[in-house]
């Protein structure tokens, strides 16, 4: 019961926020928080619940962003039509990359995802058709409402809020389905889960594909709001890092963890950028780095983990089975 009260308070605040704090800066900030919360929640499905730390999730973000801008720039369609295309691209890519990559565990998986993302960035940067280093632009002047090109951040805010609600609902539904139970078992110990008959590879792949689809939607929305995409903003490794950090700061593997992380880090970045100007760009990431090191060192369960897991022993937190981190390679130097 108390949970529902909290939930309605948060929902009411989210709906009322742009009306209470109605300056353009505040509305834009709100929209950005929601956008990153969508991406981080999508990452959470594979990174948090399945325990597969993808550092290359931006590749799916880029699928959505490029599909949305491509629909306009290449076919003259509304960027909205790019969303299904982006989802198909991202899910297809997730299937192709996921099958060999998800067999790797731990660090090896993370490194493979970085390499995939960086390869894709380099290929796109050198592809004229996709605008190479300049990227693709959306409609500068909206032709009709379906172009979703607004000057105010308010329509984006409510659009993002709706999509975030859908994303969280899907995540919640997933965790309470058979798949959620499988994922939890796999995260605790893949070997044990397999021996009890949980289809580990298939479950991880489904989680990866679902996460990819939702991340691509976030990418498409991002591109629509900013009106363009280039290799750095659509496929740069820093976007992956931001998404990952938000989820980890709030609490990876917790439904509202990514939202909490985004609500802290996005304002931090925007405010430090507007205060420090050009100098802020570097400093923001210094602060990001310091925050991540501190979370990893002192609170690996994230901030929400602090609330929900109080009372449990500290070592109990999502400890992974170390035996599975080894891919058969020798350990001795």
């Amino acid at each position, binding site marked *: 019961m108390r949970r529902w009260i909290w939930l309605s308070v948060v929902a009411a605040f989210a709906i009322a926020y742009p009306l209470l704090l109605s300056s353009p800066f505040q509305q834009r900030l709100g929209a950005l928080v929601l956008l990153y919360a969508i991406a981080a929640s999508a990452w959470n499905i594979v990174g948090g619940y399945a325990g597969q730390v993808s550092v290359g999730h931006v590749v799916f973000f880029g699928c959505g962003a490029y599909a949305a801008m491509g629909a306009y720039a290449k076919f003259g369609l509304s960027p909205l039509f790019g969303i299904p295309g982006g989802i198909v691209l991202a899910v297809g890519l997730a299937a192709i990359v996921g099958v060999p990559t998800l067999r790797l565990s731990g*660090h090896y998986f993370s490194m493979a995802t970085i390499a995939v993302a960086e390869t894709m960035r380099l290929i796109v940067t050198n592809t004229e058709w996709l605008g190479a280093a300049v990227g693709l632009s959306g409609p500068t002047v909206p032709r009709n409402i379906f172009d979703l090109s607004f000057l105010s951040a308010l329509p984006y805010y409510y659009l993002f809020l709706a999509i975030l609600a859908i994303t969280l609902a899907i995540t919640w539904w997933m965790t309470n389905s058979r798949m959620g139970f499988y994922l939890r078992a796999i995260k605790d110990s893949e070997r044990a889960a397999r021996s009890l008959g949980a289809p580990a590879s298939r479950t991880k792949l489904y989680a990866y594909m679902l996460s990819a689809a939702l991340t691509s939607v976030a990418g498409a929305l991002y591109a629509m709001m900013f009106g363009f995409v280039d290799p750095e903003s659509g496929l740069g490794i820093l976007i992956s890092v931001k998404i990952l950090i938000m989820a980890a700061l709030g609490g*990876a593997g917790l439904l509202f963890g990514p939202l909490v992380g985004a609500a802290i880090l996005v304002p931090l970045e925007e405010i430090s950028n507007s205060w420090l100007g050009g100098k802020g*760009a570097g400093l923001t990431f210094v602060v*990001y780095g310091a925050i*991540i090191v501190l979370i990893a060192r002192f609170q690996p369960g994230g901030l929400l983990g602090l609330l929900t897991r109080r009372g449990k022993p500290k070592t109990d937190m999502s400890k992974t089975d170390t035996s599975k981190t080894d891919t058969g390679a020798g350990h001795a130097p």
Partner: protein
Amino acid sequence: MSFVLVQVIIGGLLLGAVYALFSSGLTLVWGMMNIVNFAHGDFVMLGMYVAYVVYTLMGGGPLLGAPLATLVLATLGIVVYFGLIRDIMKGPMLAQILGTFGLALLLRYSVFWWFGANFLSMPPNIVGGTYAFAGLRIEASRLLAGVVALLVTLGLHLLLTRTSLGSKMLAVAEDQTAAQLMGIRPDTMQAIAWAIAAGATGLAGALIANFFYIVPTVGETLGIVAFVTVSLGGFGSVPGALVAGLLIGVIESLSGYLIGAIYKDIVVYVLFLFFLWFRPQGLMGKT
């Protein structure tokens, strides 16, 4: 034509020796503690900046810059071990990845903030001019880097296999508890391993700083090169890293020359994925 090819291959071997040196650092801590340092490329970057600062502030060449970079990075390695690694090693996987990744961002953007995003470089003849051997032209800075890196990598291998310190480190890698019962302190050994690994990496950075572009984000590319080298050579193997480093140097130079400079990174990444997917035990590992 073939003459140019020989030149390209020699250039690749010399650069590859430096790759081997900093990859040895990565493979050492990886093999010993089963922890992946995502900030490894940024250790190389710091080594480059130390050499650059030594040059701009004191006018010192690699004779001063290289030992200083080794020392600074070795100290950093110890600090990082006691401040971060020792604790996250026992934590969950997410904490390990986040911890070193956060360190990478912290180092990279501190340098970015201080020095800016500009491409810096050392004066072209800081080491000496260009030597000509039988028509082949080799820059002295590259020759110095290649030869020193090769010697130090071999030295590292000897240190690990032929000295009592190396045996102690190996013992800790094999079984911490058993090593402790034999009177070896795992903490000290692991701290020493971090000092050696980071020091070697800093030295590699100072060596390539003489002819490479110096920019805060250079660690991203070089970090991936180190991962490729380690996965190719087998996790934890210094000789493996040496062979793989030389090979990658040559492959990179050849693909840069034959296909085009923009594709050489793609070739390296694809090679990396190929090895992770199909042969995670590396070139020389056993199945």
